[in-house]
């Protein structure tokens, strides 16, 4: 761990997380700290525990040991939606979009927790509620603008191609105005053109929002090009950590990948 990583107010810190499924140890005393504004890549061979790590941080699994902290606040054991409200957004491997809904509706759902109207106000739907709707709709349109998906904003997400769906997924996560964004294999199943597009958007997000991005990724070229720092997992343990250049030369990493 670098010295900066030890400050208590890191956007995300996983401390000594251990996750077991029966006899299988998915994560073994994993500690990862994400620093302000950095693009951290988590890599590793199949079954290394990358997605498990993501699921532990997002609250899908509760680790048997260890803690997850968001900006210094311990969120271990909180429900998924509570962690999301604490500022963590994630995209899924594949997509988990609301397929029957249009792009704009998907993005508006992302803004749910930022809106305050209660059900009685919604029932009567007068002034303040409509102003709030319009205000958040504006924010949603800004995201649509940012991701260059204006033309498809009223299309049901289910009818879109995979690359565009991934972009909507990113847009929906951004709509939450998270303080940290985690992406689970965003490049999986894309052609190289789509990969380039998405890579550009990921870099843009970091520029525009100044938030750290955690990337779980298989595609080595993407990782080496984008990441500031790389954490390598193998059999549920962190085996290496450093800049992409360091990682490429690390003998433990080469051994893990080539056997």
């Amino acid at each position, binding site marked *: 761990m670098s010295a900066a990583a030890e400050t208590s107010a890191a956007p995300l810190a996983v401390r000594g997380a251990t996750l077991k499924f029966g006899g299988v140890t998915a994560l073994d005393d994993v500690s990862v700290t994400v620093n302000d504004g950095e693009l951290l890549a988590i890599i590793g061979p199949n079954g290394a525990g990358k997605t498990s790590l993501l699921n532990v941080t*997002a609250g899908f699994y509760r680790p048997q040991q260890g803690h997850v902290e968001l900006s210094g606040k311990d969120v271990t054991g909180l*429900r*998924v*939606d*509570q962690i*999301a*409200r604490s500022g963590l*957004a*994630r995209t*899924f491997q594949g997509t*988990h*979009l*609301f*397929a*029957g*809904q249009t792009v704009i*509706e998907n993005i*508006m*759902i*992302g*803004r*749910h*927790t930022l*809106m305050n*109207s209660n*059900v009685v*106000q*919604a*029932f*009567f*739907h007068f002034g303040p*509620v*409509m102003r709030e*709707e*319009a205000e958040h*709709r*504006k924010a949603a*349109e800004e995201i649509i603008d940012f991701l260059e998906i204006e033309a498809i904003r009223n299309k049901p997400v289910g009818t879109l191609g995979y690359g565009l769906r991934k972009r909507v997924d990113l847009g*929906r996560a951004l709509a*939450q105005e998270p303080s940290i964004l985690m992406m689970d294999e965003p490049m999986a199943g894309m052609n190289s053109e789509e990969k380039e597009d998405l890579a550009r958007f990921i870099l843009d997000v970091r520029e525009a929002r100044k938030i750290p991005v955690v990337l779980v990724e298989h595609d080595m070229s993407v990782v080496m090009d984008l990441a500031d720092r790389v954490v390598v997992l193998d059999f549920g343990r962190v085996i290496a950590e450093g800049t992409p250049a360091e990682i490429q030369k690390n003998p433990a990493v080469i051994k893990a990948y080539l056997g």
Partner: protein
Amino acid sequence: MDPSGIFPTSYQADGRLIRTRWQALALVLFLALMLAAPYLVGARIIAVLNMMLISAVIAVGLQICTGYAGQINLGQAAFMGVGAYTASILASKTGLTFLLVIPLAGIAAAVFGFLFGLTAARIKGFYLALTTIAAQFIFHFAVLNLPSTWMGGSNGITVPPAELFGLRFVSETAQFYLSFAVAAIMIAGAFGIVRSRFGRAFVAVRDDDVAAGIMGINVAATKANAFLIGAFYAGVGGALWAYMIRFVGVDQFTLFHSIFFVAMIIVGGMGSIVGALIGVFVIRIIQEIIATVGPNIAESVPFVGGDIVFAGMNVILGGVIALFMILEPKGLMHRWNILKSSYRIWPFPY
């Protein structure tokens, strides 16, 4: 619906329900027609319309719970019953004004519905359907087996008419206006709810509860809220029912009735308020036709026997619903939406 090439220029305009002058005109005409109905048609039609309005409130509630939030609910008639009994007891024992009785009946039903909504946090699909059937039977047993001084037992409760400033809502016409006013408010409110953040949260939970969670939506609470709102509507509808029939009995709120409400939203189209209204209209019309035609057949062909005719009529009603499911599984609203979108893009193919 604007034709091709016309786009909204503000977000408020984009969220508007009434977009064109023609839509506004159609709505005003419809409302005027409804208000004038007692002077245009006979008492029998008014009674049918009144029944439709009450069913509409209940079906819209079910649409929110099942159509929007995706929580199967076979206990809507029980929730309606809770509302009807609450209204009856309050009106007959405390003499409260209906202005308070109707919302209180809604709240009582909402509490009852919320309890069953809590189970939806853990179970889904068929199992949830079974649990909501339990609501139906708990209601039934409670009414029949609790001391009859509480809820009238099997004798039911007679309800005094609604009263406002000395005006008694006794006649068909007066009750029709009462139901119409309440239904108008409730349906307008439903449109408000479904296009607010709550409506979106319901849809999110229905379509993908994992993703809904990661959006910061409390999935369990949202499901329970869907039941709460759905049951509130049922309770208000139940109170209107109590004021209309002026007598409540436990056999007015059976599983059979619940299934009819489900049939209404399926025929009209899941996930659409207008769809629920269309479904109510279609099912109630079919029921009325059958109720009118049935006795005539029984009279004109006496050798068939009245019992068989009435049984046959229910078979036909079931058959019509089954046909809808086969031929138009997405509901009539779906067909209408296809028409609308083709108008919107005309003359272009897409």
